[in-house]
């Protein structure tokens, strides 16, 4: 039976909803609406009026090779870092689920990275991955020129992917472990009695049963990799070298606040928003079908 509160007057219900509606309006719809408006105008860098230009901002951005490069970089970053963060977390959680001694410790320790602000962890990784002094300096000693994120775009991309994944492995791990633990032990035991080995049990029983969690984390990870990457990029590479790590979210900032192209930045943020919306819809339409909700 469903418990439902009913109000005698609909006005009371509205009053209860007002604080929430107010927050959503102030912090989402208003700024989003403002961004849409700016994207359709040409803002003056130092204020003092604007000119209505229709879709010219979008035309100019979408015909710019730099912007397409930024989209490509963002998609590569999102794909690899989501895959990496989820895969590592899944493996760790599957192993932890089998031998649970000290699992409380893992839970606490592994959630910490998620609590660290992106710029702070980016700074840490900047030192760790520094080609001249960090851990990678040892590798460079043996293979000179192997690692140089300051010059090599692929190395720079790898650095920000490592930093981002490190943060989200902990987050994903917690969810995966909880999902594994929610599977009744007897189902695994029944599969063992049915002759299924450890790996087979994982693919036939555990994996299908945690698909709701995998799907949830996929949506969250992809969305966050488009948005939460800003701090990491800013501290570690500032979009370089040669725009190799100039992700969409970073380009909005640098074009808007460094290049003072407010209108172009507004248009870019609209495109980023649309991209995330489209990706999320795609995930719900085509991937959710394969999810087994219990």
């Amino acid at each position: 039976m469903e418990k439902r509160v009913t109000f005698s007057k609909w006005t009371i219900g509205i009053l209860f909803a007002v604080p929430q509606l107010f927050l959503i309006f102030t912090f989402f719809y208003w700024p989003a609406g403002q961004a849409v408006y700016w994207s359709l105008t040409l803002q003056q860098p130092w204020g003092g009026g604007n000119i209505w230009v229709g879709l010219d901002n979008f035309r100019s951005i979408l015909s710019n090779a730099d912007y397409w490069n930024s989209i490509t970089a963002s998609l590569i970053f999102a794909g690899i870092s989501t895959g990496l963060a989820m895969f590592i977390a899944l493996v760790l959680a599957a192993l932890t689920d089998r031998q649970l001694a000290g699992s409380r410790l893992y839970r606490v320790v592994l959630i910490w990275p998620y609590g660290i602000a992106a710029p702070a962890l980016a700074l840490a990784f900047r030192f760790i991955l520094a080609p001249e002094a960090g851990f990678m300096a040892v590798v460079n000693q043996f293979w000179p020129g192997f690692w140089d994120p300051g010059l090599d775009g692929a190395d720079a991309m790898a650095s920000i992917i490592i930093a981002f994944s490190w943060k989200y492995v902990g987050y994903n791990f917690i969810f995966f472990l909880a999902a594994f633990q929610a599977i009744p032990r007897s189902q695994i035991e029944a599969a063992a009695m049915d002759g299924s080995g450890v790996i087979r049990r994982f693919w036939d029983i555990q994996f299908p049963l945690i698909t709701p969690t995998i799907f949830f984390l996929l949506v969250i990870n992809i969305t966050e990799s488009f948005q939460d990457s800003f701090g990491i990029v800013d501290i570690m590479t500032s979009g370089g070298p040669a725009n190799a790590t100039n992700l969409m979210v970073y380009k909005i900032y640098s074009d808007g606040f460094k290049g003072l192209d407010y209108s172009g930045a507004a248009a870019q943020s609209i495109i980023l928003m649309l991209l995330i919306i489209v990706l999320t819809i795609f995930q719900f339409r085509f991937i959710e079908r394969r999810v087994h909700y219990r």
Partner: protein
Amino acid sequence: MASITIRGVKKNYAKTQVVHGVDLDFASGEFVVILGPSGCGKSTLLRMIAGLEEISDGTIAIDNTVVNKLEPRERGCAMVFQNYALYPHMSVAQNIGYSLKVAGVPSAERTQRIQAVARVLELEHLLDRKPMALSGGQRQRVAMGRAMIREPKVFLFDEPLSNLDAKLRVQMRSEIRKLHRRLSATSVFVTHDQVEAMTLADRLVVMNGGRVEQVGTPAEVYSRPASRFVATFVGAPAMNMLEGEVTLDGISLLGDSRKLNVSRTGLAVGSKVAVGIRPEAVRMATPGTPGALAATVDLVEELGAGRVIYVDLDGAPFSVVTSEIVHPEPGSAVGLQFAESDLHFFSSETGARLDVFKASVPEPAPATL
């Protein structure tokens, strides 16, 4: 079909020992029920046979092959779990056929065998459903099918009926029995329900506190319980137990207020014993009948086919089951009669059965009449 030999099996969890050295032999094709209260180690023992728990000490052999180190899949056992443990994301057919799929049986043969099992269990019309869409009894049947399809040497049942309602339980009980007659695979069935145990078992193993208390046919266990625990655990309502002390000419009950004449005792005068009598073995008599124990009625429970009459015997609780149509008023006096041969004696210290007594008809102390 396979025999199971259990020798000195122990189980420790960290520092607690839950199974203290069990020795059992199950013959090939036998239906054995392990009965005991929760926490007695019966499920642990079953899981050790299955290979889901490690054996801390001793050996378990299936068909004379020691299986201690074998994986569950190498032991040839199938198990039905208490909560059925069906795979929620698979259809009924997939659930039943999973072991064949793992074993690499070709799809056509698999379908054929699934159909055959489904026919026996009357699941044919449900094969495409998910477990979510099944009733408790149907889920139970799917779990049975999953065990059956492998044609295992040994069937293990871990309280498989405890999640069903009373009516379904009775029905599934007889189905399990029929199934066993058909397949005649060695079956080990764990339960805390004595009705289940009595009705299903060829042989009954009663466990308590990690030890085997008695092994025997249900009739043997009922008529000659090996210990005080078995006497009170098997049978409903439980066997009446009266504390007594061995005297020169018999046994004095309930602190000297009643006396039992026994012709011979093998025990030292002054030692403590417990005297047991099944409620079904007691007859009601009019108060004051010579040789009857006087008691006061506390409560009458109507069962339809019979009545349970709870009486007070100088403060000790005592129950009588009768099929006579009698409804004595609470508070009224009654007499209780029973045959000497229906008495059971247990040591008060160890709880072990004592067969040294030959009891005569009890003679109530005149003062209490």
